[in-house]
């Protein structure tokens, strides 16, 4: 599986890489593929932004796998913030009535906990202060 990294050979110490991952790219992936792609990016010190976030089940597995990979002085976990997509704009009326609407698209920002100084969310903005270490 190709990793979501830059095509060029720039030195990572030059700055912080931000991977903006489209919903289309995530569509064909299995849960563990998505989680592997996110955590590989975060392990590399990248900020991963998902156009369409994860399902609750995938989020719970992301926490579980993250915990398994934490190790002293190397990786101490992730920071994550999410915007749910507005229900009124995005759910179909039928889906809402039937309770079957599963297309809860949401923007999600994930980064390494040791590099994200603050990850703040208000009503319309996710703001991350990232250190280069």
């Amino acid at each position, binding site marked *: 599986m190709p990793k979501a990294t830059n095509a060029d050979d720039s030195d990572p110490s030059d700055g912080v890489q931000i991977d903006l991952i489209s919903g289309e790219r995530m569509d064909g992936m299995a849960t563990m593929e998505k989680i592997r792609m996110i955590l590989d990016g975060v392990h590399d010190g990248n900020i991963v932004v998902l156009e369409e976030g994860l*399902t609750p089940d995938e989020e719970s597995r992301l*926490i*579980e796998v993250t*915990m398994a990979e*934490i190790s*002293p002085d190397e990786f*101490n*976990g992730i920071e*994550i*913030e999410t915007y749910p997509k507005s229900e009124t704009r995005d759910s179909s009326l039928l889906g809402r009535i039937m309770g079957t609407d599963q297309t809860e698209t949401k923007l999600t920002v994930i980064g390494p906990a040791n590099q994200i100084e603050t990850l703040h969310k208000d009503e319309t903005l996710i703001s991350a202060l990232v250190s280069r270490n």
Partner: protein
Amino acid sequence: MGLFTELKDSISRVTDRLFSEQEPKRIGIYGPPNAGKTTLANRIARDWTGDAIGAESHVPHETRRARRKENVEIERDGKTVTIDIVDTPGVTTKVDYEEFTDEMDEEDAIRRSREATEGVAEAMHWLREDVDGVIYVLDSAEDPITQVNTMLIGIIESRDLPVLIFANKTDLEESSVKRIEDAFPQHTTIPLSAKEGNNMEEVYGKIAEYFG
């Protein structure tokens, strides 16, 4: 006794027996670190079984493995409900051993963080596989709108698990139960102080109502 009354009593006895033979519901106590989950679990266990579940501490991740107290019988309005209480480690997305080095030496801090990560992973696994209902404990003196809380409540809702939100630590001056009610208006919020034992009657009433 009339035939109808006898029949009704007979049916009632059968249904009571069926109910009593049901497996106890496994109720997971979830929430962020230091919300008072173990204090609440101990309060419930002591009140109904006489034994505690585990040690309590102000140091985050004192509970590092899920602990279960089986067959806790709670009696309300003449009806007994039996639950297994599962006290879980505080859910988080990061664990840094250096947070514990003020309280213990580095070796113990590293061991504590390793155990904590295993415990959180286990708690997440159990949430998907092994609990029938959730008591979500929040520190009412803290802002409830955090990513972990929002995510966990979303995961619980997606599994259609019955959930009660307990706004703990109402004995603290900064406590605001309304802040929690406003954050999660779709769920019932019950104020309490597990440490002081305040409002435990309502807590037990709601547990019986939701999980019985």
